[in-house]
């Protein structure tokens, strides 16, 4: 029977013998792993309601802005300055500046928390 040369070369490879300290080294790593407390999971349950409420605020803001645009000029090719003023006034009346600031701070705090947790694991 003619054996493929490639089969002979690749299947006849000699085994590598693990070093004598290999088992000890693995078991030391396993014991260290067992002694380490599990990482604290990110508190999504607490964060999600906050994120959801900010998303609602953002959507309401966008709806208000588009409603203002709709009420303004019919189809301007460039947004006139009077429309811009109307939009800004509309945004101010519903407290959009504070909402945007709060959203930004929430985002920053979530990002920071994720990084701190990620750095620990």
């Amino acid at each position: 029977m003619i054996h493929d040369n490639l089969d002979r070369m690749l299947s006849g490879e000699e085994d590598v013998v693990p070093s004598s300290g290999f088992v000890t080294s693995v078991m030391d790593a396993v014991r260290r792993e067992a002694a380490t407390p599990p990482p604290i999971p990110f508190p999504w349950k607490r964060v999600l309601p906050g994120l959801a409420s900010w998303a609602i605020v953002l959507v309401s803001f966008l709806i208000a802005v588009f409603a203002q645009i709709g009420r303004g000029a019919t189809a301007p090719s460039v947004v006139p300055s009077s429309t811009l003023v109307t939009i800004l006034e509309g945004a101010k009346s519903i407290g959009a500046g504070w909402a945007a600031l709060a959203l930004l701070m929430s985002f920053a705090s979530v990002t920071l928390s994720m990084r701190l947790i990620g750095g620990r694991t």
Partner: protein
Amino acid sequence: MTASDDQADVEKVLAGHIDAFEQIVRRWQSPLVNLAYRFCRDRDRAEDMAQEAFLRAYRALDRWRKDATFSTWLFALATNLYRSELRRVPTVSLEDIAELRDPRAIDGGLEDEDRDRVVRRAVSALPRKYRDVLILFYFHDMDVAAAALSLGLPEGTVKARLSRGREILRRKVPRLLATPSMEEG
């Protein structure tokens, strides 16, 4: 026998007896180090990779569903790890292997041992999908089904990649693979 020993040791570990994991390591250290060596061709790195594989197995022991043998699960986990470890190292192309430009590799003047080593280097330089299939196929004593299980691929895909990988090797190192050995079968 080994399968039931594995299961018993896994149950002990899951019950909190960490030392039972040592029996698993003793039983599977040689296959896992050898498989890692076939991927990276470096003894020290192979041991590091095998250690990481055991550590991941320890962490994931409770996720071993007993529908596959422990060894199948362990090899699949180790293969995944070894493949992703090698992804971080750029693959050497076949053209970059210095030994293949050695005049003795061209005129057939290499000793058997050197020739085998060059061909193994050439396997490591194959595109990943062919390299992985060839390594696993020969590691599992030319068992397509076992290679497919370790790689999580259908047997048909493994066969196709095996055939294509061999074809590339035959084209790239024709002289090294030219002489068939005659053996009684």
